[in-house]
C-alpha cells in the first residue's frame, strides 16, 4: 500500500477534477467535497508514511531508472505535499463559500483546482528531470485558467503575460535538461547527481539555463512583472493558491536540483552570490513596492515577490540551518500568504472595494478579517510567535554561521519593511473615520462560516507553525544529496 500512495496522491485529485468535469459540482457541492476528500486522503497518508518509514519510492510501469520514471517522496516532498494539503484543503473550503453564487465559475474552479492539486503533488514527487518539466507545465496550465475566473480584462492581460513568460521559462529549463541528457544519458535526478561530477562548463551552462527558466517561473525579481496583476486580480481563493503553492513549485524544483544534479555549478561562489543577489533585490524591491500600493490585494501580491526572495538566500549559506530555514520559510509563507489573501478577499467582499485609504474605521466592523490579516501578518513580518519567525531565526543563524553577516542585515531589513506594509493596512483599520466627513460606512456584506473559518484556521496555523518546528524539520530530515 505504501508504495502506491505517491501514485494515488497524483491521480486521485486528478480523477476528482475529471469527475467534476463530467458531472459538475453535484447537488450541494457533493462532488466537489468528494474531490477534496479524494485529494486529501492519499496526501496525508503519504506524509504519515514518510514520517514513519522514511523515503517512499515508486517505479512507474515497473521500470527502474534510467529507463523508467521514478516517483520519490522524501522529507522535502512530504513537507510540500503536506503544505499543499493543508492550504489546499482550507482554501477549498473557502472556495465552496466564495463561488456559492457563481455556478459556472464554481464548476470551472472545481475542474482546474483538483487538476492543479494533482499536478503539484506530481511535481513534488517527481525524481526525473524531464518529468519535472512536464509537471511544471501542468502546474502552469492549470494555474493560468484559474486566473481567468475573475473574468476581467485585466485578468486576461495578466494571464497572457504569465503564459508567455512561463512557457519561455519552461523551454529554458528544457534546454538545460537537453544538455544534461546529452552529457550523461539519464534523466533521473539521483543518477544524474552521481554521474555529473566534474562535467565542466557545459554543465554550468545547463545549470544556468535551467535555473533561469525556473527563476522566470518563480517570478524572481527581474521576471516578476506578471505576478502582481495575476495574483492581485484573481479571485481570492485562486490568489491564495497561486501565491502559497504555485510559485513555490518552481522554487521547490530549484532547491531540489541544487541538492541534486546541479550541486556543483550552483555551489560556485559566483553563482551562489548572484542568486542571493537576486534574492536580496527581490526582498527589497518587493517590499518597497508593497509599501507603495494603494490596493490591499496588490500589497499582498507584492509581498509575495519579496518573500520569494528569501528562498534564494540559501545558496551562499549552503548549510543545514539555511536549508531548514529556507524550506521552513516556504512552508510558513505558504500558510500565512494564503491566510492573507483570504482575509484580503473577505475584506474586498465585505466592503466592495480594497482601497486601503477608504478602509478607515472599518476595523471594528470587520474585526475577524482584519484580525486574521494581523495574525498572518505576524508570520510575514517574521515576528514571534509564528512560523515566519522560526524561519527567520534559522536563516539568520545560518547566515551568521556562514559568515554572511550582511545577508543577516538584509533579512532583518526585510522583516522591518514587511512590518511597514502590514501595519499600514492595520493602521487603516484602527483609525477612526474622519468625524468631519459625514459619510457613514457603506453597507457591509456578511460573510458566511465557510468563508470565515478557513481564513481563521490558516491564520492560526501560521502562528501555530511557530511551535511546530521540531516535528516538521524532523520530517524534512537532512539535506538530501551531497551536503548532508
Amino acid at each position: 500500500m505504501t508504495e502506491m500512495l505517491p501514485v494515488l496522491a497524483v491521480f486521485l485529485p486528478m480523477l476528482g477534477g475529471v469527475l467534476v468535469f463530467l458531472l459538475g459540482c453535484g447537488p450541494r457541492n457533493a462532488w466537489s467535497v468528494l474531490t477534496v476528500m479524494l485529494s486529501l486522503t492519499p496526501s496525508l497518508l503519504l506524509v504519515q508514511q514518510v514520517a514513519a518509514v522514511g523515503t517512499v519510492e515508486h517505479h512507474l510501469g515497473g521500470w527502474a531508472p534510467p529507463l523508467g520514471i521514478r516517483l520519490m517522496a522524501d522529507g522535502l516532498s512530504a513537507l510540500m505535499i503536506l503544505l499543499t494539503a493543508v492550504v489546499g484543503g482550507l482554501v477549498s473550503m473557502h472556495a465552496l463559500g466564495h463561488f456559492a453564487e457563481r455556478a459556472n465559475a464554481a464548476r470551472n474552479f472545481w475542474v482546474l483546482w483538483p487538476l492543479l492539486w494533482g499536478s503539484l503533488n506530481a511535481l513534488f514527487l517527481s525524481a526525473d528531470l524531464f518529468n519535472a518539466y512536464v509537471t511544471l507545465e501542468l502546474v502552469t496550465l492549470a494555474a493560468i485558467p484559474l486566473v481567468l475566473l475573475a473574468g476581467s480584462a485585466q485578468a486576461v492581460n495578466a494571464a497572457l503575460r504569465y503564459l508567455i513568460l512561463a512557457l519561455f521559462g519552461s523551454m529554458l529549463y528544457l534546454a538545460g535538461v537537453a544538455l544534461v541528457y546529452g552529457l550523461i544519458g539519464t534523466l533521473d535526478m539521483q543518477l544524474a547527481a552521481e554521474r555529473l561530477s566534474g562535467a565542466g562548463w557545459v554543465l554550468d551552462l545547463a545549470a544556468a539555463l535551467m535555473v533561469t527558466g525556473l527563476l522566470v517561473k518563480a517570478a524572481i525579481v527581474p521576471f516578476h512583472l506578471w505576478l502582481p496583476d495575476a495574483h492581485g486580480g484573481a479571485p481570492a481563493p485562486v490568489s491564495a493558491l497561486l501565491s502559497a503553492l504555485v510559485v513555490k513549485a518552481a522554487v521547490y524544483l530549484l532547491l531540489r536540483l541544487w541538492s541534486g544534479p546541479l550541486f556543483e555549478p550552483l555551489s560556485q561562489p559566483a553563482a551562489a552570490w548572484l542568486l542571493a543577489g537576486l534574492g536580496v533585490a527581490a526582498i527589497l524591491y518587493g517590499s518597497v513596492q508593497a509599501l507603495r500600493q494603494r490596493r490591499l490585494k496588490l500589497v499582498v501580491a507584492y509581498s509575495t515577490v519579496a518573500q520569494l526572495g528569501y528562498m534564494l538566500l540559501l545558496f551562499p549559506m549552503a548549510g543545514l540551518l539555511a536549508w531548514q530555514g529556507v524550506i521552513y520559510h516556504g512552508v510558513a509563507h505558504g500558510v500565512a500568504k494564503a491566510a492573507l489573501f483570504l482575509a484580503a478577499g473577505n475584506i474586498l467582499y465585505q466592503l466592495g472595494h480594497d482601497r486601503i485609504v477608504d478602509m478607515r474605521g472599518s476595523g471594528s466592523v470587520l474585526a475577524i478579517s482584519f484580525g486574521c490579516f494581523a495574525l498572518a501578518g505576524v508570520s510575514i513580518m517574521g515576528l514571534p510567535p509564528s512560523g515566519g519567525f522560526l524561519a527567520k531565526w534559522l536563516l539568520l543563524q545560518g547566515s551568521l554561521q556562514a559568515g554572511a553577516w550582511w545577508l543577516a542585515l538584509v533579512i532583518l531589513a526585510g522583516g522591518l519593511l514587511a512590518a511597514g506594509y502590514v501595519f499600514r493596512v492595520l493602521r487603516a483599520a484602527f483609525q477612526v473615520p474622519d468625524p468631519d466627513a459625514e459619510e457613514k460606512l457603506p453597507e457591509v456584506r456578511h460573510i458566511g462560516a465557510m468563508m470565515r473559518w478557513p481564513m481563521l484556521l490558516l491564520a492560526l496555523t501560521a502562528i501555530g507553525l511557530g511551535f511546530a518546528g521540531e516535528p516538521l524539520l524532523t520530517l524534512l530530515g537532512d539535506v538530501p544529496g551531497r551536503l548532508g
Partner: protein
Amino acid sequence: MIYQALPLWTLMTSLVAALVVFAAGESRHRLRITVNLAAAVFKLVLVGVMLLGVLRGDLFLVSFTILPGLDLVFHADALTLLFTTLSAVLWLVTTVYAVSYLEQRPNRARFFGFFSLCVAATMGIATAGNLFTFFVFYELLTLATWPLVVHNGWPKAMAVGRLYLRYTLGGGAVLLLGIVALNALGVPGDFLAGGSLDGLEKTHPGLVYGIFLLLLLGLGVKAAVVPLHVWLPNAMVAPAPVSALLHAVAVVKAGAFGIVRVVYDVYGLEVMAELHLGSLLAVVASITIIYGSLKAIAQTDIKRRLAYSTVSQVSYIALGVGLGSPYATIGGLVHLVHQGLMKITLFFCAGNFAETHGVHKISELNGIGRRMPWTTAMFTLGAFGMMGAPPMAGFISKWYLGMGALQAEAYWVIPVLLASTALNAIYFLPLLYRAWFGRPAAEHEPAGMAEARPGLLVPTLCTGLAALGAGVLAGMPLSPLSWVTFIVGQEYGG
C-alpha cells in the same frame, strides 16, 4: 508536573483570558469583566504559590523543543518572582481601574483582549528561561501594546503608533541579531545565575563585546535609554491605564528586566567586569538619568512630565546593575518594584485628574487638591517617592544605590544621584505646590469636593499606599527589599 509548570500556567491565565475576551465580542460586558478579574485573581494566587515554592527552593522549569537544539524554556527563579509578583498585582489593580476608565467607550473587547495579551507577554518575559524565549515574548509585547497605544484611533495616535513601532521593532531586530549571534557561537543564552557564556569571552572577546552592545541597543529601546527614548513621551496619547501599565510594568520594565537578565544570567558579573561592560552601562544609565530629569522640567503637560520622569527613573535599574556591587544591585532591583508602584500611582492620579475634571496641563492643576484630596494625596506620595524622600520606597532604592556606588568605588555616581534628586524636586514640587496651594482660575467655580469615581480612586489608593508600605515596611519578610536581598544573596553567593 503541573506544579513544576506553574510559570507556564501563570502565562496561560492571561492568554486564555485574552482569547475569551476576543471571542466573546463587544457586547458581553459582564462576562468580560468577570473573566478579566477572575484571571487576575487566579494569577495572583498562582504567583503566591510559586513565591512560596521558590522560597522553599523548589524547581520550576518546563521546556518545549521548538527547533532542533532550541527550546522554549519557562522557569521561575527569585528574579522571575520579583517581576511576576509586581505584574500580577498591578494587573489586577489596573484592570479594575481600566474597567471603570473605559466605561461607555467603544472597542472595549479589543482593548481588554490586547490588555490581557500584554500581561501574558510580560509573564512570558518574566518566566523566560533563555534568551530565545525572552525574545519571543519581548516581541509579542510590542505587538500586543501597539493596539493599546493607538486605541483611540485619532490621527495623532496613529502617528505615535508608527513612531512606537519604528523604535520597538527596530530595537527588536537588533536584539534578535545579538541573540542569534550568540546562538551561532554555540551559546544558547540560558539564564543561569553567574552567566552562561561558557568561556566564550576568552575565545571571542571582541564578538562578545559587540554582541553585548547589540543586546543593550535592542533592550535599551524599551527601557527608554537615551537616545532611544523618543517613543516613550509620545506614547502618552494612549488611554491612562495603558500609560500606567506601559510605564510601570509592561514595556519599560521589560527592557530593564532584560538588561538585568543579560548582565547577571547570561554574561555574569565576572565577564561584565572583565570587559568593562558594567561601567559602560552605568555611564549610559547616568546620562539618561540626568537627561530625562532635565527634559521633564521643560514639559507643561502632566503626562509628558511623568513620562520623562520615567525615562530618568528606569535607568536607576540599569545603573544599579551596571555598578555591579551587591548593594547597588539591591538598589537597582528593588527600584524595579518601587518605581513601578510609584509611577503607576502617579499615572492613575493623572488619569483621575483628566477623567474627572479634564485637567491635562500643569497650569490647570491649581487648587485641585481641595476638590480631589485623596487623589492629590496619592499623587504627593508618589512624587515624594520619586524624589527619594524617606520613608518612601524611592528612598530605599536611592540609599542602596548610593551605598553600592561607594562599595564599587564608583564615586562619580554620588553626584549623579544627588543631582537627580535635586532635579526631581525641581519638577515635582511645583506641581504639588499648585495642587495644594494654587489659586484656581476664575472660571472654575470652587464647588466642594469632586473626587474621581470609586473605580478609579480605589486602585489609586491601593498602589499609593503600597508604595508607601514598600518603604515603611521594607524590613519585613517578603517585602520587595528583603526579596531582592534574597536574590542578590543567590547571585553573589552562588
